[in-house]
């Protein structure tokens, strides 16, 4: 047996606190350096065990444990609203995307202007809309909360009111409308306004049914 092979076995035997294998034992009798290694390995194992035993039962202080728990609670509390908020934001984004898509569909679908009215190309976006078509999202309106109830209010709106809701009315088209309606349009343009539970308008569409139910 070589010394290298013997030492491999000696280290493991010392760690397990068992005697060396018979072949290694015979080698030890004839090899002084391996015998010394065997003794030092046994001694080392004994000291390492003592060192290990001294650390048994040692752990961090109660303060450290409490601090870790406090931190966990803080992080947990911070995490929960973030999760709920993320759902609310996602729902709002989905709703907004739906409204914007409807608005886009409205633009693409074209318009059915009141009979007899002349509509200029520039005025088209402002006068688009009919009862069958969608709403245009009011720009910069606060997002709807998740599950928030909405209602549709019919109202005659002045051009300035429409402008505040993001709908520009071309003055030329308005003048044509006024002359065509014999002054009836002075009361305002009929519109459907989608209102959130908080009373703020979120979307609007022009309607050809004059009504005034108020907000």
């Amino acid at each position, binding site marked *: 047996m070589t010394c290298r092979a013997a030492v491999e076995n000696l280290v493991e035997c010392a760690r397990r606190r068992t005697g060396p294998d018979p072949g290694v034992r015979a080698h030890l009798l004839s090899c002084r350096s391996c015998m010394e290694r065997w003794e030092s390995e046994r001694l080392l194992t004994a*000291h390492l065990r003592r*060192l*290990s035993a001294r*650390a048994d039962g040692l*752990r961090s202080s109660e303060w450290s444990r409490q601090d870790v728990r406090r931190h966990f609670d803080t992080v947990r509390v911070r995490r929960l609203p973030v999760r709920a908020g993320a759902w609310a934001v996602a729902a709002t984004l989905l709703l907004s995307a739906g409204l914007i898509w409807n608005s886009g569909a409205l633009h693409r679908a074209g318009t059915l202007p009141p009979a007899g009215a002349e509509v200029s190309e520039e005025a088209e976006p402002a006068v688009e809309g009919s009862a069958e078509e969608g709403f245009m999202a009011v720009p910069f309106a606060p997002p709807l909360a998740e599950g928030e109830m909405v209602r549709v209010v019919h109202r005659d709106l002045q051009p300035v009111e429409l402008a505040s809701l993001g709908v520009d009315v071309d003055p030329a088209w308005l003048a044509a409308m006024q002359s065509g309606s014999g002054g009836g349009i002075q009361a305002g343009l009929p519109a459907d306004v989608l209102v959130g539970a908080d009373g703020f308008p979120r979307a609007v569409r022009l309607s050809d049914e004059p009504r005034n139910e108020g907000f």
Partner: protein
Amino acid sequence: MRQGDRAAFAELYERREPGLYRYALHMTGSAAAAEEIAHDVFIQLASAVSRFDEARGALEGWMFGVARNLVRVFRRKGGVEEPVDCGVDHDILGGLIEDENLAALRRAVTELPEAYRVAVVLCDLEERSYEEAARLMECPVGTVRSRLHRARGLLAAKLRKRAAPIEMSGGIVR
């Protein structure tokens, strides 16, 4: 625990903290550093638990990885070892000799190169199997074994210089 279960986190702390503390203690030789390191591992875990991906490895491996990095930071900053008060009763002379020998051994362990030190701490001081140590050290079992054998050879050589006091402690069986 990922859902913020406080009881699960507390249970994990009770189960893992002592091992992490002892690991850090043996690796640094400092009780204060060990407490700080164990504390910081759990603080990092509390912050990252929702992002922890089990597919990338076991939680214990992750925790030991963080502890290993914190030990490196401590040593890079030039951490100074300090005596560890273990409160063991023993006769005065024998106790002094044993304390001296164990202090010498502790110093010798902390002076080992990191790869060897980890092997000694996990396999001999924490009495983990080669397989467990290999998982935590992220290396093959054969590497753990060879590092441990090499480390023990280095320790034995260092302690041989202090042979007389060690022999007085009565560890040798001829």
